[in-house]
């Protein structure tokens, strides 16, 4: 599967996080905003994001990489998705 543009990945992640995880679709989430450490979503969400990434882009992120530090902003998550 060819990788989409980063902006597209960011937008899909943003929609998923605001709608599904925060249940706040109109929240203006920025690319660099801390997700877990900013209290927007909890650390359980790391696992939900990993499921979403696999279903959407067929990218499997191994367990040891699923940490709050690695996934605390949209920018960090998108960069990891684009690594494939």
């Amino acid at each position: 599967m060819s990788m989409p543009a980063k902006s597209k990945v960011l937008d899909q992640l943003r929609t998923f996080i605001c709608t599904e995880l925060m249940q706040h679709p109109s929240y203006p989430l920025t690319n660099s905003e801390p997700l877990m450490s900013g209290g927007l979503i909890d650390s359980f969400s790391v696992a939900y994001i990993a499921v979403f990434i696999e279903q959407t882009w067929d990218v499997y992120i191994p367990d040891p990489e699923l940490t709050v530090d690695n996934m605390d902003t949209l920018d960090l998550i998108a960069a990891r998705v684009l690594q494939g």
Partner: protein
Amino acid sequence: MHEDGAREIITAADLWTDVLSAATGLRNAGLHPDDVVILIMGHSRQLITTFLGAMALGAVPTIVSTATARLDLEVYRKRIDVLVRCAAAAAVITHPADAIPLHDLLTGLTCPVISSDTLTGTADPSALSPTPSPDQTAFIQYTSGSGGVQKGAVHTHGAVLRYIESKHRGYPFAPDDVMVSWLPLYHDLGLLSGLLTPLVVGFRTVLMSPLQWVRQPGILLQAVHEYGGTLCYMPNFALNHCVRAVRERDVRDLDLRRWKLVTLGGEPVRVGSLRAFAERFAAQGFRESALRAGYGMAEVVEGVTVGREGPPKVDWISVATLQRDARAEPLASTAPGATAFVSCGPPKDGAEVQIVRDDGTPLPERGVGEIEVRSEYMMREYHRRPDLTRAAFREGWFRTGDLGYLVGGELYVVGRKSDLIIVGGRNIAPEEIEAAAEQVPGVVAGRAVAFGVADERAGTERVILICETAQPDDPAQQIALERRLRRVMTQALEITLGEVRMVERGWIIKTSSGKKARSDNRDKYRRQFGSAPEAIPR
């Protein structure tokens, strides 16, 4: 199971040697029998051996959760400082491998802070206290209560052993049983089921890091497969978390056929959670009949009721009758206005349950009222809080603050009398959230209210925070304030808010005495912001 993937096998003989060394080390560090020792040691072998070593010395251990990266360390330090003073602790023991350097952070408390690697000395059997009497304190289990008060349930050796015996009579554990647990040992369910029951009865237990399980829930199922797990105890939300977050490729080849008992406790059990879990893992050989609901709290060591063998019993009742008459009137599951509750089973051997009116008189079957419990393994008291201890009991019965009803001797839990919020088995006092919110500039002083609402997808509750502000209609201001509030809650209380609402001045309903009427505010929130009504009466 260590977070880095390493596995460590601890035999009973190894454990005993380590416990003896820990007892000796604690004695050499100046600790004495009856001293309260606070253990903040993350997920480590040393936590287990120091906990048991402290009891072997005759001291009184209590396990406390470690700081996480997102928590404000100054706030954490203050929390531990308060606990040390309230518990009159003789020492705090930390672990050198902890991710946060707690030892340095906590230095200067009113008691010594000791890193477990400095607890040394050749294992010396003379450090062991004589066999304790049944009335001697074994450990203290801290729990969060209404008003944000930390309450330490004091358990005697006799109560803990009577409890484990009762549990064993109700469900005869076999020597080839294998417990698998992701629960933290500072939680009563994790301590009793994950560690003490296997140890006392004599079967294997597999312990993993709770923080790792949260991010990678598949490790629980992998452990069941790898070690032939037969038993597991956890709160309801853990079922939902596994269903939502375990990735198919992580479980495709697992065999869960040996898993014969998954007991749920720590928060209300939901029908949807049971069904979803059983369906999701049926392909791996998991059977719905393995699921069982229980009811308990730290004050009764762990549990007072547990469901009978077989698929969990579900009672469909009328929401209207429940809310209007506080009665659980049976109704067909397909009828409009029917809601379901899961049976938590009959009282365990040595325990009794009654449902009472506000004045303490017992209610007949299907009458909904406060759940009171009495057992042979009740806590002795709340540590150093005779006032709270007195208030907790009525004529020998422990007042749980939960609402429920009995049918055929089986308990159904429908909600809570108090405003306590339970998220994922963790008790959260709304007062703590409100106090933290009111410190945030932009929130009108004394005008924040917090409560929990059911979150069916997560299988637990979501925390809703409503704040009055001077500029409720300015979207930019609102978002800026929401960001500040969310950051404060996560850093100060490790709470992720489910929803934050800014409202105009005067929105929040207070009682005539000026107290916040949380259930009225919850109803108003539902009406105004369109959240689905909740069957549970408050």
